[in-house]
């Protein structure tokens, strides 16, 4: 077990290294002049570009530049963000809580809803309930997140005036800005900070602003989970141990929920990595459309302004997320599946 985890850990460190090389390779397709522009913050400095190239060694061989870059990155220096008008590292921590908050609310819904719908769909295979959940899944799967978000905004903001874009209503946002001494950003997540600061109105308002983004995101993402769970249940129910359980006198509930479902959860855990990737992609679209200034929004804005350091930072962050998720999946898998636990 420990050697297994350790082996995975080494492998994932290697992946992270590979990701950084890959990203740096992409960065190096820029000419030295374009990369030098990243260090320019004021128009006056523009004429210094040849000096900057020399100073930072931007025309050195790949590996020298890579080592220099990785040294900087490990010291937390990721460059300058045009969109945020501050260093990338600092800007990251400003945007990250917004995205994290949304994902923290959406993830449990996606996981439990997907498992639940997938189970009933697989158990009652070919019944109307199965057909309707499958139709729901395939439509959700076919909806482009950004388009669905726009339509929801059009209906629920434009027509019904029920929800609005952004993260907080203007009045509350102004009240925070006008009285900074009364509000401390402990976590950066408004629903939590609101409560910590004794401002339930802020927390509630932020939650209200989360309804549409989470709905969009859940409907688009939940299909994957559901589909894997459904086919898992169908497969498990056809196995011999189910017959043993029936011959033992087990009732349907026990067979479905105690025997088949636990086994069917294993493939669901393996797609968790894909789920995390999908939720990042979903976050970008949702944040762009609903104007929530999280890292997805930041990424899209920076991409349109060709702001490479931000893209590098987020790609590296995604690599890190990938590593952490996979390690978690491995550990989770090993705790559920005894066949791995002892090997």
């Amino acid at each position, binding site marked *: 077990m420990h050697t297994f985890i350790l082996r995975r850990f080494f492998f994932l460190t290697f992946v992270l290294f590979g990701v950084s090389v890959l990203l740096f390779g992409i960065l190096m397709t820029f000419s030295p002049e374009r990369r030098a522009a990243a260090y320019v913050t004021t128009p006056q400095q523009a004429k210094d570009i040849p000096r900057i190239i020399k100073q930072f060694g931007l025309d050195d061989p790949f590996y020298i530049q890579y080592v220099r870059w990785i040294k900087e990155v490990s010291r937390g220096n990721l460059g300058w963000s045009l969109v945020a008008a501050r260093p990338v590292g600092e800007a990251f921590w400003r945007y990250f809580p917004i995205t994290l908050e949304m994902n923290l609310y959406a993830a449990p819904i996606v996981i439990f809803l997907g498992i639940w719908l997938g189970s009933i769909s697989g158990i009652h295979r070919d019944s109307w309930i199965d057909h309707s959940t499958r139709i729901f899944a395939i439509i959700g799967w076919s909806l482009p997140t950004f388009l669905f978000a726009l339509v929801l905004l059009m209906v629920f903001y434009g027509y019904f005036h029920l929800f609005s874009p952004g993260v907080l209503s203007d009045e509350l946002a102004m009240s925070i800005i006008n009285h900074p001494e009364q509000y401390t950003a402990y976590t950066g997540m408004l629903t939590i900070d609101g409560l910590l600061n004794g401002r339930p109105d802020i927390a509630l308002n932020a939650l209200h602003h989360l309804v549409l983004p989470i709905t969009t995101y859940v409907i688009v993402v939940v299909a994957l989970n559901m589909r894997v769970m459904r086919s898992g249940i169908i497969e498990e129910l056809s196995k011999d141990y189910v017959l*043993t359980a029936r011959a033992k006198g087990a009732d349907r509930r026990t067979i479905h929920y105690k*025997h088949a479902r636990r086994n069917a959860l294993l493939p669901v855990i393996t797609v968790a990595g894909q789920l995390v990737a999908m939720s990042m992609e979903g976050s970008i679209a949702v944040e762009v459309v609903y104007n929530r200034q999280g890292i997805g929004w930041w990424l899209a804005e920076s991409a349109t302004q060709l702001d490479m350091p931000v893209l590098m930072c987020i790609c590296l962050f995604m690599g890190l997320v990938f590593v952490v998720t996979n390690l978690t999946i491995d550990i989770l898998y090993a705790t559920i599946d*005894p*066949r791995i636990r002892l090997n």
Partner: protein
Amino acid sequence: MTALLQTENLVTNFYTYEGVVRALNGISLVVDYGSTFGLVGESGCGKSVAVRSMMRIIQEPGRVEGGKVVVFFDPDNQQRGVDLLQQSEAYLEHLRGDQISMIFQEPNAALNPIMSIGDQVAESFLFHKRKEMCARVLEALRRPDGPSASPLGAFQRHLYARAARNPRDLLVTLTTKIPLLKHWQRRLKKEALRRSIEIIGKLGIPNPDKVVKLYPHNLSGGMKQRIVIAIALACSPLLLIADEATSNLDVTIQAQILDLLRSLKQTEIASILLITHDLGVVAETCDRVGVMYAGNLCEVADVGDLFHDPRHPYTRALLAAVPRFHQEGPLLSIEGAVPNLVDPPAGCRFHPRCPEARDICRRQFPETVDMGGDHTVACYLYTDQARAGDAP
């Protein structure tokens, strides 16, 4: 002889894309108290379908469509049988594993891979012996050195008392579904595990208290089959159905398992219904034998009778195909293959391969003929119609 299980005209069909597979075409047999009944035939002839139909655990797209499966729970009263095909699913859940249980061909697949051995065996007790076990736990709780008289202890005692009276009590069922509260069942589960260890030990597995903590992949095939048997035997059923239980095991393990079954029949269970394609196993273990071909029962007889005086041409061919120690001449095989059951041959299903087929065999299905001495056969060779001039 007193019957334990009797099937009459059992019919099971599978509805597939290729058409309706007529897997069972009216099977009638009787398993007596205290006997071992062997069901033999080539693979695909419907032996497994037959026993699964009896227990009503046929999987989609199969359906039991006719006949009777009558169980006589009281050997002294042959009038009061219960037709399983008329009972509710809940009744059968009650019966399976308690009165009739089953072991399967493939021990590697028959156990849930992510549940410990102990839990899987204990399930049998938890399904069927709840009342008894609750009473036992209650006894232990009431002893003076039991847990203190805290309100929680009293609540626990109360629940066990209710469960011992009626395991389907509303309060009891309710509390087993609520997280945290459901932990009152801890002692019950412990009791079930204790019983599991006991039964596993009885089946000759060393260190049963360690084995219960293991998972199926830790055990060898023979061990797993013993565990499957332990699950089936947990509640001392009347009838044990063994569906090719030894076919996938090494010869030595096979012998051990057969010995085990034989000795169990003397102590734990009343009767065994043994399904196999191995005539050697039949000769060694069974009292009575039924020979199946393509969804039909061709011949039923006592084991000695069948081996010395086989009547049905298929039985004869089957026996001729068994290699013998003092083999003289070539081993005979049966020409042709088992027919496709979507479109079975008209009349007797064996006629295309039968050396003695007559005209009537192609047209009409033969009636079962009583040859005397509890020997029945379904073949026109022995009917009056055939003798009356319908020459081969």
